[in-house]
């Protein structure tokens, strides 16, 4: 069946089976391979995308259910090709990753957190990322990255809206 999706501020019309998950649709139909799958049963968070600015698990959602919502994937976070967002840059600064497989989900989770809570405590950060499994880092440098990003965002003159496709 035909679904009209709004992904990264662009309209996309895709032909999917009713049972196709959002993550399979993003990866297979739209070629957005930055969204990963680690479990396909809602635990690991590797498939995290933003739906109207909030993190959701694209493996637990059908593509048809996403019809009409604004979806943001990792591909839309960088402001320009080769240029990192403040959050992405902070992950690079603290080395908040190793293999990079959980990273798109972590970055999107962090982007959403910092939009909701610009000045998060360590507990806020831990609780936000606790639904995303990282097997490489032990989370320490991810927590540092998000705290650093918060600090840098507070000191930057960027508009607060860091996630594209968001209602202002």
């Amino acid at each position, binding site marked *: 069946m035909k679904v009209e999706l709004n992904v990264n501020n662009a309209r996309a019309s895709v032909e999917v089976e009713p049972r196709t998950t959002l993550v399979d649709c993003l990866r297979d139909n739209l070629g957005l391979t930055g969204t990963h799958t680690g479990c396909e049963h809602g635990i690991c968070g590797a498939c995290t995308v933003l739906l109207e600015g909030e993190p959701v698990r694209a493996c637990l959602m059908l593509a048809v259910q996403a019809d009409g919502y604004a979806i943001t994937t990792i591909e839309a976070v960088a402001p320009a090709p080769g240029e990192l967002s403040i959050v992405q840059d902070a992950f690079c600064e603290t080395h908040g990753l190793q293999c*990079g497989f959980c990273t798109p989900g972590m970055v999107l989770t962090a982007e959403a957190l910092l939009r909701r809570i610009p000045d998060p405590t360590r507990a806020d950060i831990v609780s936000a990322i606790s639904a995303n499994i990282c097997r490489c880092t032990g989370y320490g440098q991810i*927590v540092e990255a998000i705290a650093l990003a918060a600090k840098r965002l507070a000191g930057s003159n960027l508009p607060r809206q860091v996630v594209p496709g968001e209602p202002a």
Partner: protein
Amino acid sequence: MSAPVHFKFVETPRRVREDRRFVAGRGRFVADVRLPGMVHVALVPSQHPAARIIEIDAAAALAMPGVHAVVAGAELAAAVDPMMNGLDTPNVRRFPLAVGQVRYNGEWIAAVVADSRAQAEDAAELVEASYEALPFVLDAEAALKPDSVPVHPDHGSNVLLDRTFVWGDVAQHFAQSPHQIAFRVTWGRNSTVPVETFGVVVAWDPWNEILDVWASIQMPKYADQIARALRLPANAVRVHYDVDVGGSYGVKRGIKHTVLAGYLARRLNRPVRLIEDRLENMRAGDAHGPDRIFDVTVAFDSDGIINSMKMRALDNVGAYAGRAPFQLGKPVGAIVGPYRIKSVEYRAVSVTSNKAAQEAVRGFGQAPTNYAIETAIDRVAAALGLERIEVRRRNFIRKDEFPYLIPSGTRYDSGDYHTVVDKVLAHVDWPALQQQREQLRAQGLLAGIGISACLEPSGGNSSFEPLLNPKNTTSTWMESCRINVDALGYVTATIHTTSSGQGHETLAATVIGEVLQIDPDRIRIVRPDSLASLPGNSPVGSRMAIMLGGAAFHAADKLKRKLIRIAAHQFGCAEADVDYATGGIKQRGGPGQLSWIDLVTIAHRNFHLLPAEMEPGLETTHVMQVPTGEALPTPDGRVQMYPCHSFEFHVVLVAIDPDLGKPEFRRYVIGHDCGTVINPAIVKGMTLGGIAHGIGAALLEEFVYDDQGQMISQSFMDYVLPSAHEIPEVEIVHHCTPSPFTVLGQKGSGESGYLGAPAAVASAINDALAPLGIVMSKLPIRIPELSDAIAAARASK
């Protein structure tokens, strides 16, 4: 160590170049590889732990839309050779699909190929198999009994390996010691469980007769093994190393997946993609680690000095042999840990059972062994009423004793254990920490301090192969690097493996930049495919800082020497009379001066200016043998295992609410000495990640089988990986004792944290439980077992 003490790039906080692509979602993982005409595989699992396959009926599956083939074991076994065993056990044969008999729940009996993965899965459900159930065995001790059902009847028993080593005068040391303690500890079957499952994409080109492989791989000699099993010339298998691997820590071996996909690709003449789903991964994806029972006896003096140790390690490798039994061999190289234990009797027993086959896991058997050794130290301290840290101090090898030869034949390179301990105790404020424990106890909580001190053997050779398999004469275990400077003066270097988060591109660039004194960020690192690669053995055994770092260092050093020769020739002076600095060369006490680009131009364009018989261009390679890898094991099993030995010392404070039984970390400090640190952020990450992994092994993770042989940890709801909630903030105390055996003094750190954390966490819990008189001696110590034990102890008080 031949390098400067003050580094320009090494040891400095520099970014990890790989990170940029990953934060942007632009990594290229195997599931991102799409080829035209590619078809997809789903696997049909066995429902039985042991059964004879009577018939596999694929008719209904083949009638489904999009299905191209259903292949079972008989067809595959006729076309491919069995996969390699590590030990000399020719009758333990293994193919990617079960042949005639299934040996564990979840074992693949057939592969279904279809246009989409969904179609393949639908059809796989319609494959009808009829079985005759057979008796099975799950428990290692039961499997060891002579009357046990053999998992491989042709092999005759379940025993793959039963070898007793005696190093030193164990009998005399036991006779002379006034005290002995015997105990048993058990290491549950856990694993590394990367977030990315294993996957492979294979394409066969019949016109060029070449098999292209993209895989989520971390496996020495991978291409060779694929070629051998598929009966192809080795130069007909081309493995693409430019695939990002989504975590491995040992387990991404994937030989059976690749042999299967390779066969299917040739048979169907279509590119084939086999990406495990999580269930396939956990049940049958070569995903399980050591599953081990230790029986340990130590003999010691009244002052806590341990004279001798007897250890029996009984490992349940599951249904097939593979390389798993070698995980009993690697710990031989650090069998006494950081201690001066004078003699050791070590009995290594490896048995098959009807569980999934075991694969290599971070530390290659060292983490369980460290848990057993550290438990011994805690028990000795308890028996004598001595402080646990004091007993460790008394037994530690002293820094002036290095290089130190341990009874089993390995010479430890360097260390300063006492200083690391002092630094950690100063950092934690040891008296205050003990007070904090008492305060927690006064609040009605169970509180304990955990201690562990252990080694991370690093540098990774393969001495355990000839140690445990006399037919194997491998002593070579090399890594390589090639550097090319182009005609415009830009530097490109090669690495010859995939990476799974270790930052090898950063490592190689940093070392080359250090030697050539040029900005590492300007050095391009590329990964040729396996046919264009120099010899290597992949990132196993915490070896890449030492081996890739070493190869890159030597290749850069050769390049520098070539530049010096060119310059001296122009200046008409001796090579000793020039100074190399930041890429340019000056004549000492003379007018000669050539910049980097001058030298590059001479090398590339001015053959008439080159010294006689020098090859034009600026290209150097180095193939490096592992340091100290000079000899085969002696007949009595003494062997130089890995060259370098990093040290870690954990201090952990845990509090347990006695009603809930949930351990909570109040403090986690690790002292870490891995010699010269090439990139601080990478080493920090590996240590923190290793500790998190070790906490999982200690408290949460286990592949559990029920008594019917069904694996019941089939999802992330049953096999629980630690989240950010479970992992405390970890404080790292650094120390640096350079290794004398490596180019920059570096040692390995890829397994750090994981090697000591399980022992430390267990030690903390047992310290907390001591007032109740209970001891937990099996990992993982999960909340239900812990709360039951606490409740029982309180009820009986």
